[in-house]
């Protein structure tokens, strides 16, 4: 699709679509149509919004047309949405942004539309998958580690809380990174985790935050799709809170410490440049703080000078590359050695994407 488009780029804009025989394809051959698909509402103050904001920035670039669909379930609905974007809107690059879209839905659609490029957020692409597919993700666990340091300094009770949706590797890595960050400040700190069982459950998230507060937890963070409720509840209960996905500082002016945010525009701009330059898109893209895939929220008023200095130093380390949060010797919270001494997994280590334990210091279990 891309090469055909660039061949035709000299043709008069108006008639080009018809000569392609693509019926409903939009007029300008030089325009690249990109489809974004979200699992939840675009404005959830969290995961989906982080993507949608980047898509909105992309929309302003020349030669790009963005088509978006929100609240698309992880069923054959998403296959139909992708096909519809291809067939009716002439999309030639698709970003299905929810983890559950990858297998089998996106892979199946990609086999059907070999000339369309599919890049998925969060999936674990391997070279067995179709070459017109790929995945991208950010090492946000690093941001969670920095969150943990901020929490470690702010906590007086030495009890931290984590409201999580489900015990899956991405979430476990965040819980562990947060805990290890805090324990690098004070090894006596523990993190109580509560699983709500679903990605968006406002009443349960509020209940979880409250029961953490009742337990004496004084800093919370979360991994749910829309962190708004947890952040607001924490602020009302006088707790400190570290954000996730996007900047939620406005929701907790007193208690917001810092937050691990996505910065997807870096990734999308990179794909766009390749597509417009006629280059093959990479299949497996990962990046962290150094690459600008992930960023930290500005510090809130409750972060001490000492904490800022510590975080800035570690962040500088991370920017150099090779920093490992998960390194041996590391025990899980049942006492078993999960990473032997001498082994270190830097953010790029693929092993981290299949994490299945909670580290020492985390109270909770993977059911």
């Amino acid at each position, binding site marked *: 699709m891309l090469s055909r488009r660039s061949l035709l780029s000299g043709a008069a804009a108006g008639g080009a679509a018809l000569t392609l025989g693509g019926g409903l394809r939009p007029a300008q051959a030089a325009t690249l149509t990109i489809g974004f698909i979200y699992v939840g*509402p675009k404005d959830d103050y969290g995961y989906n919004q982080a993507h949608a904001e980047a898509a909105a920035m992309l929309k302003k670039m020349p030669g790009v047309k963005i*088509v*978006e*669909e*929100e*609240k*698309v*379930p*992880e*069923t*054959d*609905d998403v296959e*139909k*949405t992708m*096909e*519809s*974007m291809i*067939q*009716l*809107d002439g999309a030639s690059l698709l970003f299905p942004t929810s*983890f*559950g879209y990858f297998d*089998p839905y996106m892979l199946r659609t990609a086999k059907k539309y070999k000339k369309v490029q599919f890049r998925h957020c*969060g999936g*674990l692409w391997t070279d067995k998958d179709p070459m017109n597919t790929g995945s991208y993700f950010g090492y946000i666990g690093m941001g969670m580690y920095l969150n943990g340091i901020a929490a470690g300094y702010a906590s007086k009770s030495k009890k931290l809380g984590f409201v999580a949706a*489900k*015990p*899956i*590797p*991405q979430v476990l890595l965040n819980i562990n990174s947060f805990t290890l960050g805090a324990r690098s400040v004070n090894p006596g700190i523990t993190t109580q985790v509560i699983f709500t*069982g679903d990605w968006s459950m406002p009443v349960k998230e509020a209940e979880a935050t409250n029961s953490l507060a009742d337990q004496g937890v004084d800093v919370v963070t979360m991994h749910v799709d829309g962190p708004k409720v947890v952040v607001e509840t924490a602020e009302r209960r006088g707790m400190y809170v570290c954000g996730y996905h996007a900047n939620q500082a406005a929701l907790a002016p007193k208690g917001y410490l810092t937050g691990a945010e996505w910065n997807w525009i870096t990734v999308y701009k990179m794909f766009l440049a390749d597509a417009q330059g006629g280059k093959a898109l990479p299949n497996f893209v990962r990046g962290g703080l150094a690459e600008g895939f992930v960023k930290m929220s500005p510090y809130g008023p409750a972060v001490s000078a000492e904490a800022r200095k510590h975080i800035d130093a570690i962040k500088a380390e991370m920017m150099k590359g090779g920093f490992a949060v998960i390194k041996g010797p590391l025990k899980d919270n049942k006492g078993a050695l999960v990473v032997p001494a001498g082994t270190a997994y830097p953010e790029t280590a693929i092993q981290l*994407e*299949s994490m*299945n334990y909670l580290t020492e210091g985390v109270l909770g279990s993977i*059911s």
Partner: protein
Amino acid sequence: MSATANSKATAAPAAVAGAVDRSYPARRTLEAVAAPLAALLLATAAFALFLLALGKSPADFFDLVWQGAFGSWFSLQNTLQRAAPLLLTALCVAIPAQLGLVIIGGEGAFVLGGLAAAVAALPLDGVWPPLVQLVMAAAGIAAGGAWIALTGLLRARRGVNETVASLVLAYIGIALFNHLVEGPLRDPSSLNKPSTWGIGDANMLGPLPGTDLHPGLLVGVIACLLCWLLIYRTATGFAARVTGGNLRAAQLQGLPVGRLIIAACALGGAFAGLGGMIEVAAVHGRANASLIAGYGYAGILIAFLARHNPLAIIPMAVLLGGIGAAGGLLQRRLGLPDATVVVLQGFIFVAILASETLYGRIAWFQPRGGR
């Protein structure tokens, strides 16, 4: 229950008047088509006003609905595919409704049916795929049937209200499903999306020849036809309708009311469970949270729109599927939020349900002569 009262009221005069007024059955069918169509028109007109008030062009809107839902072979397939699971979940409501029961817990039977089917395929590695699929279907049917039969049992033996029991059991069923899929039955290699082990590519149901549609559509249509025959052409169906029309009369006639209730619930649940099995075998390849997509709840609405007539379920499911299929295009082309189609659905369903009141009001459709 007015729906069951209807079937009784229309059935009786037909028998009396049929001999004299030969065109009455045709007119009655026409009435059943004309009323909802008029309602559909009214609802779209009202929705057009809604759009105008928001400064959007209704013409563009309906043009896109047509394009997205029916305007091309691709769009039509999109619509039909979305309708497929709804045919079976609507039967889960329509069959017990013949007895006057309001079952709203099909979602639980659907997901548990899917789970049972996925699990049933696991030990059958390397077995002839059609046999595996049959075993999966049997497992789905059994699980779904048992789940709704539990509601029927509570109703028949303990007198627990079936609407409430089925709703509560749906929540419990979904919790059980989540617990099993993310706990004991989880494939440890299903990393970020907890799932059961896959059923294997060989055991997947392929598309219907010449289309992208999975066989669920065909199964659903056949199921609707069979149910129509069962309800309107068999003694059991007649007994069920008598019971639905008048419980006391049925008991006086010596009809096994309790057993009928449990059987109707089991049959309805079996269809929902079969729907779950097809989702697993044709779409997902394993059981996971993707099964909890609200098909069970959508089925309730379709059954009521179809006035619990299995044949009418087909067009109503297509209508709902079409609106869903068009929804994406509306978001993309008009920049309308996804909730727009929910509003449209609300308008249409309120109007169609309200159009029930037109039945029997227009003289031309009514039986003539006789008496």
